[in-house]
């Protein structure tokens, strides 16, 4: 749901790269907080799993940051 909302906002602000980056950063923070609480509740919280979330988050941010000239 949050990703869908972020997608709508990203498409709405397609002419303003900085706004898109801000939306992506917000989504990434939400994604990391969600991941932590989901796995904590599920009793599957492990360092390896959280590292994977951080790497995916970092990839998403750096891929977009790379085109902000």
């Amino acid at each position, binding site marked *: 749901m949050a*990703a869908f909302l972020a997608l709508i906002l990203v498409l709405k602000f397609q002419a303003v790269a900085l706004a898109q980056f801000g939306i992506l950063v917000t989504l990434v923070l939400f*994604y990391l907080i969600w991941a932590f609480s989901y796995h904590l509740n599920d009793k599957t919280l492990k360092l390896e799993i959280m*590292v*994977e979330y951080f790497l*995916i988050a970092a990839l998403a941010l750096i891929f977009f940051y790379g*085109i902000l*000239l």
Partner: protein
Amino acid sequence: MQWHKFFIPHRDTHKKAHLLSLEALALYLLIFVLLQASFKIIEFTNPGILGISSNITVQGIIELTNVEREKKGLQPLSENTSLNSAATLKSANMFFENYWAHFSPTGKKPWDFILSSDYRFTFAGENLAKNFENNEDVVEAWMNSPSHRENLLNPKYKDVGIAVEDGIINGQKTTLVVQMFGTTSPLASLPNPEGKLLGNATKIGPKEYEESVPFFIKGTAGAQNEGALINPLKVSRTLGLFMIGLVSTLLLLDLFCLKRRGVFRIASYHMAHMAILGVAGAAIITTSGGDIGSGLSFVYENFR
């Protein structure tokens, strides 16, 4: 070599594919970071190798600006040769002093260029843009920014001048667009539908106005009219989309294989990964990559 282990989970241990391992993800991150770092190094050591070529034209920008004004029932702006000259002086100065801003590092102000071109404005404004590829993206970006839109749709302006120049800023070839707006009519005679005559405009006093120093183009702007060898925007966009596609495909393959095998693995939630990569991919595809800074308007407050 068992190539399938790179793409699908291990048959017996159901461990993730090699290309989806933590080490692989860290490697993708490292590759991209090194790529961006190499762009910065090239900008510093070999300015002009990196850059974006464009199809932006003076007439195209003016036409699109007037289309937007017409939609709001405003009078179209007339192309003014003095403002064209002012915009050209400004763009040359930006390349010469290597800055991306309304005010130069040596203290030159936007109205210095306008007054140098013998345009005795009462109300004027400036929009800037760089790293865009076409007229439509430039005007759309301005229209999506409140300060730039305020300039584009300001009923007070009657004239416009545009410069579209190629040069190098911060080690990167770019096409710079400088848009200067203005009117020479007394302020009291200007349309004022919102009742705020001066609005958010920067106010210029008589001393600053009358003592503005004429400015002439000095020196050269750097490499001109030669295509850049590498477009960093295209390279970053292509590699980013490729990596997003690769990781998303591997995540889907992983899900499919585990479901088919009837195996449950304690692991991260693949759908969440794909969602965030999907949003990043959409942002990469849709963004133009250009920069517009902030719009600026200024008024000579004594000229009523």
